[in-house]
């Protein structure tokens, strides 16, 4: 193997792990202590947005094992039972993989609409799992705020991810 070939391969490998690394980074950003009152209560679910974005636009670079691992790390950091986010993200991955043909190549509004349908379902499932696992009814209002915040922030994050994709990752071949 010559040097140029090796460098090119390394370059492609580095570009291919960008989606997973960014999503993992968003998990860390999501738990960072932002000194704004009540921020933590309504903090948007950044990993869900990133998983949605990459599974729709570059499914080859967001395999379900990575989604599972990201979910487990998210659970470990936020203190919820391990597996909750992993399951929610896995199911989101499964639904998106089968439905992405309706979303790819459409306008941004359709892309957002897809997320508007996914986010409440993910929120409701998380709420249901937490209620079952904690053995007590978790107040649903915080989940509702969280879902609304997630939907509202999605265009901004999608814009950022779009630019990152254009600069670092590229389109699906």
């Amino acid at each position, binding site marked *: 193997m010559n040097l140029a070939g090796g460098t090119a391969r390394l370059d492609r490998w580095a570009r291919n792990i960008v989606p997973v690394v960014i999503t993992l980074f968003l998990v860390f950003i999501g738990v960072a202590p932002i000194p704004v009152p009540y921020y933590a209560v309504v903090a948007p679910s950044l990993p869900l947005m990133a998983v949605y974005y990459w599974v729709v636009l570059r499914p*080859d670079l967001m395999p379900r094992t990575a989604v599972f691992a990201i979910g487990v790390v998210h659970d470990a950091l936020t203190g919820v039972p391990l597996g909750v986010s992993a399951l929610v993200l896995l199911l989101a991955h499964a639904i998106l993989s089968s439905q992405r043909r309706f979303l790819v190549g459409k306008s941004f509004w359709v892309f957002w609409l897809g997320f508007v349908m996914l986010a409440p379902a993910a929120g409701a499932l998380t709420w249901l799992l937490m209620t079952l696992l904690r053995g007590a009814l978790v107040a649903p209002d915080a989940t509702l705020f969280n879902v609304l915040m997630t939907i509202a922030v999605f265009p901004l994050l999608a814009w950022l991810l779009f630019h990152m994709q254009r600069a670092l990752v590229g389109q699906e071949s």
Partner: protein
Amino acid sequence: MNRGSGSTVVGLALPIKIWAQRFAFLLLIVTAFTLMLLSKAETVLIEQSRTAIVDSVAPVLTVLSQPAQSISNTIEEVNGLFLLHADNARLKRENELLLGWQNEARRLQLELTALRSQMNIVPDPIPRAIGARVIADSAGTFVHSMLVNAGSQERLVRGQAAVTVDGLVGRIAAVGRRSARILLLTDLNSRVPVVVESTGDRAILAGNNSGRPELLHLPRNAPVTPGDRILTSGHGGVFPPGLAVGIVAEIGEAGISVQPLVDYGRLAYVQVLDYGPEGILPAPDKTVPAAPVGPAPAGTAPSDTAPAVEGAPIVEVTPDETVRPTAAAAVVGAVQ
């Protein structure tokens, strides 16, 4: 995933590939459920994996939490500039008042020391405070906890109390090597034995995942009014007594809600109270070894020497009173 490229694969390979993918998906789903159930049962293995994950990303979280903190500091500094005059006047007034309190506290301290030495009371152990920075805040929808960048290498132990100058933050729920999780007072699983400062009535402060935990098991007809301060009672041996916890906010049909004194939204640093290996309870095994010095207090001693002998071993465990053990031993020696 690879449906497009799958068409080039010959004959049988495609169905096998699809089946393998479905199997992998099912396997991951089953794994997720298993993890959940094991987490629910609080298995040691799961807890260890969780702390291992947190430990490994703690340095990243520490770095990430710094910009957020410095932005907040800058905002507060700019705010502070505008309030400089008003703050100065207020602080001068407060200082005068506090100097008065300081004199009073010194007088009471002397009186307390004198009274304690007469009564052979075991003084509360003095804790060592370990400072730690908040590196992750998940006081969110489902779990109210925070991660700090100190762990077992800083001698943090599960169960220790985390405080700020304002009051109690919560207790250490899990400890890794260089990180630890604090369960906040507001979490659904948090239960803290407390007293109402004005009346001394005992109760349990129970978190409910809202910003205001509730007072439970307060004696019937106990007089509580909004604004009453709530302190830890020290019962149960988890928290030291007398830590400020919160203020009674609202008394309604649904119960009594308490506003924690700590502002969780702005929490950047906490102090973890370390009471040494024995915790806040005086270790029973340490009170016993001194017994051979004098007659055992179980009735074998002559009745007039018993109080001094009983007092002696208990006093020996207290670190801050180095004079009295020798005095007590002298009494024992004199009697023998």
